């Protein structure tokens, strides 16, 4: 479902993700653990492009959602007939065998050709533009369309402070014309009843407790009928007595078959619901496996050290 390919992310000089690849399959519940600052949030936020990867690709349902322009131009250039002639000429001149080129090397050549400005007429060519549009349609997904399929819950809930609970829930589905207002209200009502907060529907977020806020934030995402839910430490900002109610809702979701990616420090929760655990450290996925493997038979010293601190 979500495919992260060779993603790196730099904040200035600091490299936070180092060539990370991972795939989330439909129905999986993937838990990401790791010490603070190891890049867990950044990886999660790269999945729905809240952070733009510095390099690498993010795919959703076999559609590219990250940095289409660079990828597209280059990939399309590789596919384009017009381009192929130029490329072949270039390759002949440089005496390179195209079949022996890796994708990386191809991209390097494209960069060279771009520098020589031969590329510009091609990019502005009508046939090229037509091909590009067709390619886009076939292989890429607009970022906003991708996000409609991915719910996200934040550590600090981020309910819309200027809207009542019910309006928090229906804003996105109605503004994006996914549902009529009537349908959205019905959906929101049944979800609110499910979490027992229907009487609060006209209150503002500031009137809710932390646990209530986070549960509302979760169903706000559910109103969009997402295919996958991303959670970034959903219980870290809560008072201890409220952690349970949020985790219970998430467990319900898991049992309903939702695909989930959860960054959390709740190891009990991870053991109970996860189908796979990723351990991150220093911007890399250091170890991954079933909860059994990770918690009972950790291999890397880093993970052993980490688990000894949190368990």
């Amino acid at each position, binding site marked *: 479902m979500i495919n992260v390919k060779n993603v790196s992310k730099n904040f200035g000089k600091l490299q936070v993700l180092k060539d990370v690849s991972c795939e989330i399959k439909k129905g999986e519940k993937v838990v990401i653990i790791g010490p603070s600052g190891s890049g867990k949030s950044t990886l999660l936020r790269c999945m*729905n492009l*809240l952070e733009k990867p510095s390099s690498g690709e993010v795919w959703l349902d076999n559609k590219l959602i990250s940095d289409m322009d660079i990828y597209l131009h280059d990939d399309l250039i590789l596919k384009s007939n017009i381009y192929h002639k130029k490329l072949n000429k270039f390759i002949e001149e440089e005496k390179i065998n195209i079949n022996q080129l890796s994708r990386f090397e191809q991209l390097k050549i494209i960069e060279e050709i771009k520098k020589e400005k031969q590329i510009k007429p091609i990019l502005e060519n009508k046939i090229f533009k037509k091909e590009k549009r067709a390619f886009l349609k076939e292989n890429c997904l607009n970022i*906003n*369309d*991708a*996000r*409609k399929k*991915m*719910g*996200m819950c*934040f550590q*600090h809930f*981020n*309910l*819309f*402070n*200027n*809207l009542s609970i019910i309006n928090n829930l229906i*804003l*996105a589905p109605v*503004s*994006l014309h996914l549902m009529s207002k009537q349908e959205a209200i019905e959906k929101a009502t049944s979800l609110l009843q499910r979490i027992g907060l229907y009487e609060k529907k006209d209150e*503002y977020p*500031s*009137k809710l407790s932390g646990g209530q806020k986070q549960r509302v*934030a979760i169903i*706000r*995402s559910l109103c*969009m009928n997402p295919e996958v839910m991303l959670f970034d430490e959903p219980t870290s900002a809560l008072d201890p007595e409220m952690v349970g109610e949020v985790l219970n809702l998430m467990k319900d979701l898991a049992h309903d078959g939702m695909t989930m990616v959860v960054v959390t420090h709740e190891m009990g929760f991870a053991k109970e619901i996860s189908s796979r655990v990723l351990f991150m450290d220093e911007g890399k996925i250091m170890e991954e496996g079933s909860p059994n493997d990770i918690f009972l038979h950790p291999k890397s010293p880093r993970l052993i050290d980490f688990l000894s601190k949190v368990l």
Partner: protein
Amino acid sequence: MLFQAGFFQEVKEVLTTKEFMIYILEGFKNTFLMTLIAALIGLVLGFLVAIIKIFSQDNKFLKIPAFICNCYTTIIRGTPVALQLFIMVFAILAIPGFKETAVVLTFGINSGAYVSENIRAGILSIDKGQTEAGRAMGLSSLTTMIKIVLPQAIKNVIPSIGNEFIALVKETAIVSMVGSTFGKLTFDLNQAATTISKDTANYLIPAIVVAIFYLILVYSITLLIKLFERRFRQSDQR
């Protein structure tokens, strides 16, 4: 001198002389109109400039508009409004019959620069998580701005924008620098005082009467702002 015997008598005389009151009411009307139109121009410009500046951070197509906006706020806020008025009336829009337009535009453009900075600060003061939550649900950056961020930002900036407009009321008084005649939009309260003082041969009394009218105008605006503030706060009890 202020409280010599005839003082209140003279004030009363100004207030009851029909001819004088026509000047004052005309001036009041024009000061009010100039402020209103300039404030509307300022609001529209202010929002536009603030949003362009904010969006230019991650939209490369807005880099040039944002540069222009930065020049605009820097120049307008870095030079006296009196100078701007002169340049606008006697150079940029020195077309016969366009003086009123030029004057109102000057005040509007001037006010827009300050309003935009207020709005920008207001937008920046809203937690980034609000934008992220909106964007994460697939809302466009513009929808997120209009439906989530701006309503919260506006609530925070009403008082400072109100102050801007109160300052604007008084700033319009410099319009006398470019001159005007009765019946034109530029014949403001301040000019009413000057005109009356020519007849009464006393500047102080008309000035005091006009000051009272300025006060009435400013105080009404203050009340209006308080009303707005309360309305906005009701929708977000904390």
